[in-house]
């Protein structure tokens, strides 16, 4: 900064008015640029919703050879697309085959807090917080707020096709994520 006594500004009413107008115009222009950019910059960060996207049925191998009546953990592969990254994901499910054209398919995640449960002594048991379910999926012990979540399925030509889904944990209602 130069070291000298600052030159006093004109205090004429017209000059003061002119300065105030210029200050207002400067603020208006800067405000316009900021507002114009706010919408794109905020929208840019909001992730796209999966709502309305078509869900598909994926074939689960080895269903025809499944033992009737015995809950069995089965796996299937599907392509997962996240933005620009495509990868293969292996899903696991619990299947109880009642007949060649009838089955019950459970999500492998406990409705309490989404831990993976096991089938021991004719019951589904969650190791995390002790939720227990019978083969019908009904909660018979522990903190789970609802029964085991079933997944949509169809049987075509003797083969099982399952629609993978995720549900909110810890609430009594079965609500898709």
């Amino acid at each position: 900064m130069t070291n000298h006594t600052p030159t006093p500004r004109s205090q004429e009413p017209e000059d003061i008015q002119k300065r105030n107008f210029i200050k207002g115009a400067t603020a208006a222009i800067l405000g316009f640029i900021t507002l114009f950019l706010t919408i794109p910059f905020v929208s840019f960060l909001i992730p796209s919703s999966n709502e309305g996207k078509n869900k598909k049925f994926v074939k689960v191998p080895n269903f025809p050879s499944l033992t009737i009546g015995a809950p069995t953990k089965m796996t299937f592969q599907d392509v997962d697309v996240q933005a620009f990254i495509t990868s293969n994901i292996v899903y696991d499910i619990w299947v109880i085959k009642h007949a060649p054209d009838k089955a019950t398919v459970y999500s492998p995640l406990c409705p309490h807090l989404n831990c993976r449960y096991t089938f021991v002594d004719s019951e589904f048991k969650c190791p995390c917080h002790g939720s227990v379910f019978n083969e019908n999926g009904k909660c018979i012990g522990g903190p789970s707020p609802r029964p085991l979540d079933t997944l949509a399925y169809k049987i075509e030509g003797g083969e099982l096709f399952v629609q993978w889904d995720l549900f909110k944990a810890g609430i009594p209602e079965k609500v898709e994520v």
Partner: protein
Amino acid sequence: MKKPVLDTVKNWVDERTGLVKFFTEFLHEEIPGGTRFSYTLGSACMFLLTLQIVTGIWQLFYYVPTIDYAYSSLSYLRLQVPYGWLIHGIHYWGGTLFTIIVGLHALRVFIWGSYKKPREMVWLIGILLILITALFMFTGPVLPWDKNGYWAGQVGIGIAGSVPLVGSFTQSILQGADKMGQMALLRMYVLHVAILPAAIAAFVMLHLIAFRKYGESGPWDEKKRKKIGYFWPEQIFKDVVVSLLIFILLVFLSAFFPSPF
């Protein structure tokens, strides 16, 4: 009489930091010869640099610096992310415009003789800033990892490698491997998003500190120098008008001349 709340807050902050006094002196800087549009080029550079930094950071939310995903992540950003085309476009055209405005700014300073004593440090730091800008323009286009970017990087690094004595070493540092590939992309990425932004921020601060020591040199005609203008609000208004025109140009170019890919 009770002081307004704003005055109380200002005094509290100023007592503890001196910031209010600093900004008051900063804003009421006198400009010999009065305010001019030719003085707006420096502020235009600052405006463009700010836009480049913000749009650059925003793109980091989607860009992936690997040879598998660099191109697809950028395509996703441009085609599927809301307003991604605008943010990428502003960054793409902003880089070119920044280089042009920096050049015009240096030319204006040279023609007016504002590099002369006692402002030599301002000039020298400015030259360093031009070199950093050139490095930005070299490292940035490589990041999409498209044909243009790949070969621009290959040729540029090859030129660096042809320098006697230090060429091979420089090439190996820039390439990070025997040939252009993942390592080179990563190094261009780190240079472009971390090292060069830190360097430009530091040197811009020094540039401004050195500039504010003696202020604007003003016109060489003594009669014209007698007129006094002020930074706030007159010069800032002119700066903001030019910034608005630059901003409109950037949005226009982004919308009607998208970057090729």
